[in-house]
C-alpha cells in the first residue's frame, strides 16, 4: 500500500495517492472495530473476574483482593455479589446464578455443605463460604486462562492463509514491477503502465483474506463460550465441524454415574418393609450399593433393632434385624445358603434378599441414563453424526442394555481405562484406513468423557470433549472442548456453531479471492482505475467483516 501511494505521488496523481491511504485506513478502522467487537464476546467472559472478596479475619470483615485470600479462610458473599473464590458453604442458603460459567439461565439452589464456584453470582441469601482453592487455582482463573489462550491455537485454514499471505505479497509486488516495465518496453508510455501497476498493488492487498478468517474463528469461539461450551482454539473448532463419529464414555457421560435403586420386587412382604430390612442390614457398609439402598430408604436407621451383622466376602451380608435373619447379596449367596430363589431377568446389579431362609425378593440397582441423553443422541445422529460408539468398563449385559436403549451403533464393554485408550486408537486407525480409500473423507473422531478418568482417551482422539466439567481441573486440562454442564445437547450446539463458522470462513475466502482476481485482471488490462481498485479493496474488506456477523448472532 505504501509503495502504491508513494508511486502515485511520484507520478503526480495526488488525489489517488491520498485516496488509497485514506480509504485503506478507513478499512483498517472498520477491521479493528470488528476484531475488537468479536474479541469482546470472548472478553465478556472476562467480566466474570471478581474484583474483591469480603474475608472474615479476627471477627472483622475486610474487603481484599481475591488473590490475597488463603485456603481455609472464611469469606462472606452478600446478595448480588459475585462469588470470588471456590469453596464450601458453612452458613446460609441462597440461589446462585451460574450462567457465566455454564450458559444455564436457571439459578441453582445452594445450602450448607454445598460447593460453590467462583464466577457465579449470589442472588438472594447471605453466604459464608470456607475457601478451598487459592484464586490462581479457582474455576474462574482457569476459565479465563483457557479463553485467553484460545486465539493462540490456530486452525489449519488460519495457518494456510498466514502462509499464503507471506508468499502472496512478494509475488504481487514482483508482478506489479513486471506490469510497469515489460509493457513499457514493448508499447512505451511508462506513466500509464506505472499507474496500472500501482492500481494493481492497491487491489492486491490481502487484508480482507488475512483478517476475515481469524475474525470468524473469534466469533465462533465467543459464541460457543456464551452457550457454555469452551473451545480451546480455532483448530479444535475446525476439527469439530468435521466430526462424524462420536465415542462416548458411559458412566457419568451418558448415565448419571450414580447407583440408584431402580426397582423392588417383593414376595410375601411389602416393598417398604423389604427395603427397611435391607437398609438396616447394609447400614454399616460404605459400599456404593449400600449407600444407594440407604438413600432409597431415606429414613433414619434404628441401630437398636440391628444385631449380628456379618459381612460375607464376595457374597453379601447376613444380619439379624428385628430378630429376623436377613440375607442380602448375590446369587452365589442364595445358592450357598440353599435358598430357593427366583432368578431375576433384569439388567443391572441385583440384590437377592432372604428373610428367615425364605426368598423375599430382589432389588435392582443400576446407573440411571441421564434424562436428555436419548433425545440429544437422536438429534445428533439425525443432523450431524454418522456413527456413535460407547465404551465402558461395565459388564457386557449392562452396556448392551444401555446401548440398546440409546440406539448406539457400536458398544465395547468390560474395558479397563488403558483398553479404552487402545479402542479409541483402533477407531482412529480404522477411520484413517477409510480415509485412504476415499481421499475426500477427512472426518474426525470426537471422544466425550466426564474428564476425570478419561483424560488419556480425551488426549488421543481428534477432538476431546469433557462433559460436566464445572469445577473439575483435570477435565479442563485434558480436553480440547469443555462443556460446563452435563447437558449432552450442548455437543450439538457446539457442532452447529463450528459448522456455521467454517461455512462463513470458507465463503469469505472464496468471495475475497474471486473479487480480487477479477479486479486484478481488470486493472492490469486498464479497464478499472485506481479509484475503483481502492473501493474494491475496502469494499471486499467491509463485506467480509459484515459477513462474520451471523456467527455471533447465531
Amino acid at each position, binding site marked *: 500500500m505504501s509503495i502504491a501511494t508513494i508511486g502515485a505521488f511520484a507520478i503526480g496523481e495526488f488525489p489517488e495517492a491520498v*485516496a488509497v491511504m485514506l480509504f485503506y485506513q478507513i478499512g483498517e478502522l472498520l477491521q*479493528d472495530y470488528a476484531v475488537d467487537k468479536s474479541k469482546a464476546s470472548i472478553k465478556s467472559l472476562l467480566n466474570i473476574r471478581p474484583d474483591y472478596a469480603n474475608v472474615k479475619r479476627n471477627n472483622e470483615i475486610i474487603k481484599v483482593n481475591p488473590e490475597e485470600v488463603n485456603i481455609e479462610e472464611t469469606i462472606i458473599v452478600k446478595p448480588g455479589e459475585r462469588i470470588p473464590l471456590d469453596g464450601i458453604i458453612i452458613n446460609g442458603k441462597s440461589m446462585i446464578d451460574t450462567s457465566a460459567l455454564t450458559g444455564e439461565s436457571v439459578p441453582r439452589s445452594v445450602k450448607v455443605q454445598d460447593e460453590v464456584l467462583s464466577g457465579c453470582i449470589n442472588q438472594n441469601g447471605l453466604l459464608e463460604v470456607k475457601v478451598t482453592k487459592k484464586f490462581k487455582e479457582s474455576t474462574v482463573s482457569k476459565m479465563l486462562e483457557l479463553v485467553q489462550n484460545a486465539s493462540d491455537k490456530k486452525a489449519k485454514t488460519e495457518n494456510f492463509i498466514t502462509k499464503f499471505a507471506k508468499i502472496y505479497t512478494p509475488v504481487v509486488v514482483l508482478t506489479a514491477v513486471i506490469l510497469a516495465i515489460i509493457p513499457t518496453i514493448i508499447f512505451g508510455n511508462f506513466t500509464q503502465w506505472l499507474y496500472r501497476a500501482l492500481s494493481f498493488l492497491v487491489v492486491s492487498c490481502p487484508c480482507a483474506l488475512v483478517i476475515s478468517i481469524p475474525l470468524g474463528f473469534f466469533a465462533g469461539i465467543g459464541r460457543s463460550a456464551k452457550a457454555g461450551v469452551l473451545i480451546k482454539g480455532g483448530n479444535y473448532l475446525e476439527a469439530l465441524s468435521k466430526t462424524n463419529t462420536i465415542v462416548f464414555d458411559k458412566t457419568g457421560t451418558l448415565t448419571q454415574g450414580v447407583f440408584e435403586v431402580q426397582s423392588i420386587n417383593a414376595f410375601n412382604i411389602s416393598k417398604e418393609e423389604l427395603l427397611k430390612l435391607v437398609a438396616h442390614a447394609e447400614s454399616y457398609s460404605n459400599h456404593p450399593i449400600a449407600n444407594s439402598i440407604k438413600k432409597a430408604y431415606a429414613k433414619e436407621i434404628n441401630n437398636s433393632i440391628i444385631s449380628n451383622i456379618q459381612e460375607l466376602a464376595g457374597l453379601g451380608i447376613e444380619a439379624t434385624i428385628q430378630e429376623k435373619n436377613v440375607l442380602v447379596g448375590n446369587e452365589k449367596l442364595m445358592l450357598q445358603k440353599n435358598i430357593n430363589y427366583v432368578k431375576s431377568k433384569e439388567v443391572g446389579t441385583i440384590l437377592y434378599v432372604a428373610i428367615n431362609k425364605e426368598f423375599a425378593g430382589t432389588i435392582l440397582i443400576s446407573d440411571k441414563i441421564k434424562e436428555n441423553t436419548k433425545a440429544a443422541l437422536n438429534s445428533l445422529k439425525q443432523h450431524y453424526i454418522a456413527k456413535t460408539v460407547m465404551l465402558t468398563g461395565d459388564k457386557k449385559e449392562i452396556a448392551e442394555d444401555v446401548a440398546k436403549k440409546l440406539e448406539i451403533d457400536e458398544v465395547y464393554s468390560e474395558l479397563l481405562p488403558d483398553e479404552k485408550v487402545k479402542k479409541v486408537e483402533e477407531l482412529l486407525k480404522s477411520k484413517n484406513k477409510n480415509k485412504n480409500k476415499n481421499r475426500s473423507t477427512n472426518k474426525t473422531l470426537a471422544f466425550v468423557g466426564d474428564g476425570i478418568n478419561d483424560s488419556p482417551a480425551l488426549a488421543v482422539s481428534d477432538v476431546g470433549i469433557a462433559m460436566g466439567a464445572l469445577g473439575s481441573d483435570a477435565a479442563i486440562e485434558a480436553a480440547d472442548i469443555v462443556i460446563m454442564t452435563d447437558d449432552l445437547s450442548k455437543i450439538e450446539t457446539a457442532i452447529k456453531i463450528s459448522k456455521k463458522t467454517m461455512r462463513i470462513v470458507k465463503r469469505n475466502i472464496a468471495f475475497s479471492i474471486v473479487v480480487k482476481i477479477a479486479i486484478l485482471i481488470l486493472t492490469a488490462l486498464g479497464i478499472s482505475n485506481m479509484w475503483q481498485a481502492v473501493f474494491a479493496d475496502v469494499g471486499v474488506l467491509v463485506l467480509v467483516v459484515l459477513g462474520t456477523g451471523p456467527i455471533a448472532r447465531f
Partner: protein
Amino acid sequence: MKKDITKIVIALILFIISLTISFNPSYINTFLYIASYIIVRIRNSNKSN
C-alpha cells in the same frame, strides 16, 4: 479508536476540500493532499501494512 476516527475525519475533510476546490495558486491543493496523507499516516506509524 476515538483518536483514529478524529484523524481520519480531519484527513477526509482536507481531502474533500482539496478535491472540490481548485485553489489559486495550485500548490495549496498539493499542500492539502500532502497534509491529509501525513495525518492518516501518523495513525499507522506503529503498525505495518
